[in-house]
């Protein structure tokens, strides 16, 4: 934990991108956390005068359903974040396991895994998601939706990880571990995983974005659980009330602005963190000797 905080502090101090990223992400997370102290239940409506533009009383305005967008969005952002993060984590677990195992084991295991993997790559995901949604949408919780979406969101990333592991397993330190009698599982986890971390990180962000995008897409088509406030259902309700053309632009602009802010911040964070975690720069940092000075 202390190590983690040090990393954060290092990044914050030294990298303006990360400084912005940390600030923005903290703001978004704080915002999401404010849902716990929200004076308004996201399920209630018409407690405020509808269609009020942003003002001091309603920083993000109110929507046509008489809801304060600020407080409503705290829930929406929280749920979307939770959903995105769960999806990203679940699909990362699949992608990492498949990528590591297929890459390391090679041979027939690799072939089988990659055929399955490629089959998932070529599937038309959205129509299938819509269908699956049909099958199990009823009262589908955020967790279940995350599981379904995660099941389709790992294949391409598993391939990336696998190709990295293919070269990692030929590295000498892998052999050192093998000859230290280390079990395959711990070689994968403690030796190779740190090296694929930068790529895992950047795919995580992409996956997060993809997942939240999927949720928005499903919601826009009227296919998600409209009872749960998310960025997607916010846009769904805004569409139902024709917010875009009836001048209630803040209804759409607020969630979009928050997600843009969040993702720009996440990208910047990944760039900074990737550089930080990249074994090459990590070495430079730790050693203080520049790599081009080694014969």
């Amino acid at each position, binding site marked *: 934990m202390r190590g983690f905080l040090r990393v954060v502090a290092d990044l914050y101090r030294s990298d303006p991108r990360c400084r912005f990223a940390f600030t923005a992400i903290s703001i978004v997370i704080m915002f999401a956390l404010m849902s716990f102290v929200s004076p308004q239940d996201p399920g209630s409506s018409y407690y405020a005068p509808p269609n009020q533009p942003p003002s001091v009383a309603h920083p993000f305005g109110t929507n046509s359903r008489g809801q304060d967008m600020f407080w409503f969005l705290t829930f929406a952002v929280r749920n979307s974040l939770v959903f995105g993060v769960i999806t990203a984590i679940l699909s990362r677990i699949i992608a990492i396991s498949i990528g590591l195992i297929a890459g390391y084991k090679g041979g027939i295991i690799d072939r089988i895994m990659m055929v399955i993997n490629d089959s998932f790559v070529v599937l038309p995901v959205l*129509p299938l998601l819509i269908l699956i949604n049909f099958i199990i949408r009823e009262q589908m919780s955020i967790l279940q939706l995350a599981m379904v979406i995660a099941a389709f969101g790992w294949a391409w990333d598993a391939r990336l990880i696998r190709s990295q592991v293919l070269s990692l397993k030929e590295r000498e330190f892998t052999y050192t571990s093998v000859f230290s009698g280390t079990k395959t599982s711990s070689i994968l986890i403690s030796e190779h995983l740190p090296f694929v971390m930068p790529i895992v990180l950047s795919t995580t962000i992409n996956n997060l974005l993809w997942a939240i995008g999927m949720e928005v897409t499903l919601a826009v*088509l009227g296919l998600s659980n409209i009872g749960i406030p998310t960025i997607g259902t916010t846009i769904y309700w805004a569409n139902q009330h024709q917010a875009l053309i009836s001048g209630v632009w803040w209804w759409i602009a607020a969630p979009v602005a928050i997600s843009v802010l969040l993702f720009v911040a996440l990208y910047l964070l990944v760039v900074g963190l990737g550089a930080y975690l990249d074994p090459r720069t990590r070495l430079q940092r730790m050693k203080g000797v520049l790599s081009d000075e080694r014969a």
Partner: protein
Amino acid sequence: MGKSFLTYVIQRIAQCLLVVIIGITITFLIPRFSPTDPVEAVVNRAMMMGQFSHPDAVEMMKDALTKLYGLDGTLGQQYVRFWRGLLSGDLGPSLSSFPKPVMSLIRGSLPWTGALLLTTAIIAWVTGNMLGALAGYYADKRWSHVLSIIAMSLHPIPYYIMAFVLLVLLAYVIPVFPLGGAVAIGLKPGFNWIYISSILRHAFLPALSLVLVGIGGWFVGMRALVTNIVSEDYVTYAEYAGVPNRTIMYQYVMKNALLPQITGLAMQLGLIFNGALITEYVFNYPGLGYLAYSAIFAGDYSLIMGVAVFSIIGVSLAVLLVDLAYPLFDPRVKHQ
């Protein structure tokens, strides 16, 4: 010599076939668990007439429809029947537009989706990579940062919103583009300027929305790739030798960074439906995405399957071709 290449090609094709078979099987199975039932859908529609229909009449209708649609028999039998049909190039009749063959429905929509999405995918790919490469190569410049922020900001905007904002701006506030459709009403297809310009004009907004959202991903990826390649020895060496920056940028940096992006482009085709569906929905574009969407709502298994089969085969084929052609782009690649 050529023989080993042939073996490789055969292996690769076999793998591609396997992928297609698994993909199609998954797509075959999922709708079978769907609560939408094409027979029920027709019955529901008949009920919509408001008329009283005697329960026996409904039962009669249901039995007849089930047979007609080929939905009788076990899952296994249906699966066998499906493959038998597919192999003879017949995807069966659409259930929601019975008895229109699925093939002919797809034939009408495929060219539109194909043309729009291929063009935009390529434009987005080229522009995104181009700008990404520039931004990566001149990573210290101010404009590079500005460009990066813009590209990154475009990326998370939902397709729907992007499309709609463009629509409101350029078809309503400043009405320079049509609201939707693929070509003006009543124009007869032909190789003439009026028809072609009408297609271009109608495709512009959908294309722009797809390109704008698509650029971001390529931009970010390319930028990262270029940042890595710039520190490669051969780039440094060429810089030392005084090779002009432009040559270095294109021939030493971009060319090399594009290689992984080529595979990405092929894979990207798989994501076509996300963009296509929404785009077609917003712009009334007559493509496959919307066809699939309405098929799902109608419980039209055979149409869903048809679109999915085309998509799966299309993407697998694209990936296969890129794989086989990859050595043309990258002389280092050996097929193993």
